[in-house]
């Protein structure tokens, strides 16, 4: 016993010496033991602390990566190769950081949904919500700048897309492009400034605003579990809340913190598992602009944007890109000021629930679409995807020649046959049923409906052969479409 007692006494003595000077023990103890409503010790309340934990993991792994990473356009890509292949467990730290970033964005979004559905943004927690929106923007900023630091082909052309979007800002656009890129092109200065943003500016702001966010949570108290019918009123809310924590409160530590601890640990374990199983993200090809055989794709959390950019009608694109985010941000920031009072429970806020569902379904659909990007031509389908054999069996020489034209003129890049090939244009398995011979010829030569005109690039013989092949594309037992007037005239068939 004496063996244990002696060190404990020593620790207490040293601790006492420090606290005599720092005087922090009492405020820390009071903070940890501040009363929270009993029902908030719930699995629904664990996402904020989990986001904080993942942020801490990102800070640590980020610093570890900075030990090796070289923020130079000429060397960044090679330094990632060194991390992946030469530094012991460098791949693992990269994987942790990459998966940590995915989890961080996901958890921040879930946290936001929970806060929204539980009405936590209402009086008096408006500022907490506003700071939270800033934290969301900063988190997305980290995700984008982080993708740039993985200086590969996707990062290079992703920067080009960012520059092209910013260039559309009226009047200031060209200057903003130069400021963003740090010069006339995507090059060394570009990477250096994104490094400064990703490593100093945004994390610094994140730390400051996370601190403010936490301070607000402590000052105002955690949002109580929303009860249908319990209405928030500015005049009485604070008094009612204190009544609640006094009557039915538990100390945050150890009362409510256990679930936070378990969930945070679980999330870190998930990140470790993903890192071990899936490994690090990229880098993909070298950031050499002269290698143009590339199909740049954004990281997971910007895939929906990639889909939106492909699907918007051209004339709506610039307004949607420039005004859309402003409106979304405005609505988010204004939310607590427009509905700062009233019902908190999601059971009595059907529009709030529907909004979340709508946004989730929209983002999910766009992300899913971006997974196979049907709007992009499959650049190598003409040379890589053969026409399925049944489409060539028992065909005349002319029709087979047409099949050759179909491949050689890259029709396959945009049109699928038997489920193989591009999806930019319609699948052609039934085209003969839908268009008559004359309509096929006109469509091929003049284009239209988002199809280029091929008149200049097809000889009459090639067009004849191609259309002959296209006319064979109809289900068995279903006759190809015919021009009624012509059938009448000829009286044939």
């Amino acid at each position: 016993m004496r063996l244990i007692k002696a060190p404990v006494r020593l620790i207490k003595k040293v601790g006492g010496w420090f606290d005599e000077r720092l005087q922090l023990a009492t405020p820390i103890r009071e903070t940890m033991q501040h009363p929270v409503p009993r029902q908030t010790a719930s699995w629904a309340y664990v996402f904020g602390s989990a986001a904080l934990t993942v942020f801490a993991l990102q800070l640590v792994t980020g610093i570890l990566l900075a030990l090796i990473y070289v923020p130079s356009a000429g060397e960044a890509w090679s330094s990632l190769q060194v991390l992946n292949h030469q530094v012991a467990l460098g791949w693992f730290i990269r994987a942790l950081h990459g998966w940590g970033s995915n989890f961080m964005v996901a958890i921040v979004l879930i946290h936001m949904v929970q806060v929204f559905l539980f009405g936590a943004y209402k009086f008096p927690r408006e500022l907490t919500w506003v700071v939270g929106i800033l934290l969301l923007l900063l988190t997305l900023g980290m995700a984008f700048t982080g993708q740039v630091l993985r200086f590969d082909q996707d990062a290079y052309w992703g920067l080009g897309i960012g520059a092209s979007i910013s260039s559309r800002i009226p009047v200031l656009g060209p200057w903003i492009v130069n400021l963003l890129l740090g010069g006339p092109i995507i090059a060394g200065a570009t990477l250096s400034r994104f490094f400064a943003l990703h490593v100093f500016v945004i994390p610094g702001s994140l730390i400051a605003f996370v601190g403010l966010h936490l301070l607000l949570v402590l000052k105002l108290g955690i949002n109580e579990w929303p009860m249908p019918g319990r209405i928030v009123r500015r005049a009485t809310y604070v008094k009612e809340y204190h009544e609640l924590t006094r009557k039915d409160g538990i100390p945050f530590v150890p009362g409510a913190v256990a679930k936070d601890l378990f969930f945070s640990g679980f999330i870190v374990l998930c990140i470790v598992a993903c890192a071990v199983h899936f490994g690090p993200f990229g880098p993909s090809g070298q950031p050499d602009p002269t290698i143009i055989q590339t199909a740049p794709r954004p990281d997971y959390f910007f895939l929906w944007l990639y889909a939106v950019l492909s699907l918007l009608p051209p004339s709506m694109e610039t307004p949607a890109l420039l005004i859309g985010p402003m409106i979304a941000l405005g609505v988010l920031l204004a939310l607590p000021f427009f509905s700062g009072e009233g019902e908190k429970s999601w059971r009595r806020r059907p529009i709030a629930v529907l909004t979340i569902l709508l946004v989730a379904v929209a983002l999910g659909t766009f992300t899913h679409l971006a997974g196979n990007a049907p709007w992009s031509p499959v650049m190598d389908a003409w040379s890589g995807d053969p026409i399925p054999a049944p489409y060539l069996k028992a065909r005349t020489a002319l029709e087979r020649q047409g099949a050759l034209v179909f491949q050689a003129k890259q029709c396959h890049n945009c049109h699928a046959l038997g489920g193989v090939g591009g999806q930019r244009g319609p699948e052609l398995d039934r085209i003969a049923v839908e268009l008559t011979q004359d309509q096929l010829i006109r469509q091929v030569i003049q284009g239209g409906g988002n199809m280029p005109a091929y008149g200049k690039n097809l000889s009459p013989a090639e067009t004849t052969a191609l259309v002959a092949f296209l006319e064979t594309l109809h289900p068995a037992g279903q006759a190809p479409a015919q021009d009624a007037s012509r059938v009448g005239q000829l009286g044939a068939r």
Partner: protein
Amino acid sequence: MSLPDGLSRRAMLMKLGILFNAAVGAILAVPIVSYILSPVIRQRRPGYESWLKLGGLDQFPAGQTRLAVYRNPVVNPTDGETANIPCWVRNVDGQKFQVFAINCAHLGCPVRWFPQSGLFMCPCHGGAYYSDGSRASGPPERGLFEYRYKLEQGNLFIDAGQMPTTGAPTAGLTNIDAGRPGCA
């Protein structure tokens, strides 16, 4: 000792001190802001663009479209491969040329030339252009960006140096759709 309007000597000194620091801050802000804005200031004078040699005319056979690469004129030691910029050179008929930027006029992805179908296709959002650079289909609202060119002593030169974007096609580039109503 207090001044007539009730302003004490200490309060006066504090205000003077704040004013002094504001002045120092302003003096410091000028070089800092200029430093941050240097990419913009530099663009306005002397400019980023200059005439660059793409190579001898024998590299660009008549009637064909070939990829050419130039080293960007404004270059830093750390730029590495990123300063090598590709572009598409179309020799129309042996006399007339067209030099297109590699960047899609939609959002800047690299367009690829398919001689068989005579189209430039973009891998990102599905833009397509005809051989003369005019828009064929997809999200781009205009044709490809085209560099100004000149022929000197059997060499092809272009006026380039800046990444072209929709909002800033840059001085050295012409909008090839302008004055060409009804594309091919």
